[in-house]
């Protein structure tokens, strides 16, 4: 099970501090969303026994600038995330094969529908369930976040869209153990298996992209054989 977090300088904890807590809570890996974060993945994994993966979360105002950032950052990271939040950005993200995860699609003016759901499935773009507001907001904003999660969940179930689950932690104190997340998910209508699948999906993305980055990889199902030309 993996979790994806923001780290210093975007968050209040460094990558190694987040990794220490995540390992303690039983996660197998950690995806770092912050591009500016400076860390030594090997040292952290030696010390705390958790895999740390470089991800980049692109936060752009419109699809044009997002497209530029996607082109620039794709080679630099194992997991490329694009923050949604407007209809055009969501649409752009789910229709781009190079993007791994569309984060926070329902925040702000953003919305999700059957068209985007189908596109996300075709292009294998994972949609993120953001549990942050469920754990940290209260009152009206939390009710809205729950409504949005429910709508997204119904679409994801209907169209079999790939998805990931995260609590979008900025600090190690905002992390919660997988078992707690399953309990919270159950209260708001997710099945425990869905939560586990959502946390495992980060790991699957990492494995998929590692395979693609392998020099023997040509396309899915085709690998260079052990023969000299």
């Amino acid at each position, binding site marked *: 099970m993996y979790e994806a977090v923001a780290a210093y300088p975007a968050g*209040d904890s460094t990558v190694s501090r987040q990794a220490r807590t995540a390992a303690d809570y039983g996660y197998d890996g950690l995806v770092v969303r912050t591009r500016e974060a400076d860390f030594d993945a090997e*040292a952290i994994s030696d010390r705390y026994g958790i895999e740390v993966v470089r991800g980049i979360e692109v936060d752009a105002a419109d699809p044009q600038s997002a497209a530029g950032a996607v082109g620039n950052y794709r080679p630099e990271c194992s997991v490329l995330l694009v923050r949604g939040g407007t209809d055009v950005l969501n649409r752009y993200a789910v229709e781009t094969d190079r993007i791994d995860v569309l984060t926070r699609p329902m925040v702000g003016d953003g919305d999700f529908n059957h068209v985007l759901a189908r596109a996300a499935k075709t292009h294998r773009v994972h949609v993120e369930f953001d549990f942050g507001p469920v754990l940290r907001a209260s009152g009206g904003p939390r009710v809205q976040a729950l409504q949005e999660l429910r709508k997204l969940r119904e679409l994801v179930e209907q169209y079999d869209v790939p998805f990931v689950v995260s609590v979008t932690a900025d*600090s*190690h104190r905002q*992390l919660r153990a997988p078992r707690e997340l399953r309990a919270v998910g159950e*209260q708001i209508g997710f099945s425990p298996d869905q939560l586990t699948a959502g946390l495992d999906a980060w790991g699957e993305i990492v494995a998929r992209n590692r395979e693609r980055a392998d020099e023997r990889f040509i396309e899915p199902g085709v690998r260079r054989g052990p023969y000299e030309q």
Partner: protein
Amino acid sequence: MKHLPKHIRPRWRYLAVEIEAAPDADIDRGAFQRALWYAAGNLLGDAGSADADLTVFGFEYADGIGEAIVRARREETAAARAALACIDSVDGDSIGLVVRGISGTVRACEESYLRDRSPDLTEESVAFADDQRPAIRRDDVAELSLPEGFVAATELDFH
């Protein structure tokens, strides 16, 4: 009032909870209990919250780390776990927490899941991001005081 015969007394479970907060955060049992009730009321509603019947039994906290034992009805441990996960802050201090385990008695809970306290804090100056910073340190983790506020780090970041 005379206490209930044993076979109709409620069955309880005790959740061992580990708490982590900023070193300067001041959290006491009452504040934690209030936060727990508030979280349960918001997540489970009045009815669910009454069913779970969450009570903070043991509470120990000092210098940023603490342990609590939370009692819940036997059938409601999942709801109790969910409510605990939704405690984001106590009296404005953000806290991290994790359920270490669940037992049928307070004593078993303490003995099986709650560890001894970590060594005390030390204040020292560490090298972080090409500068010397004052830090509050325990074991291999530290809270660094930076111009923009506290940053939590581990000794892997000191160089």
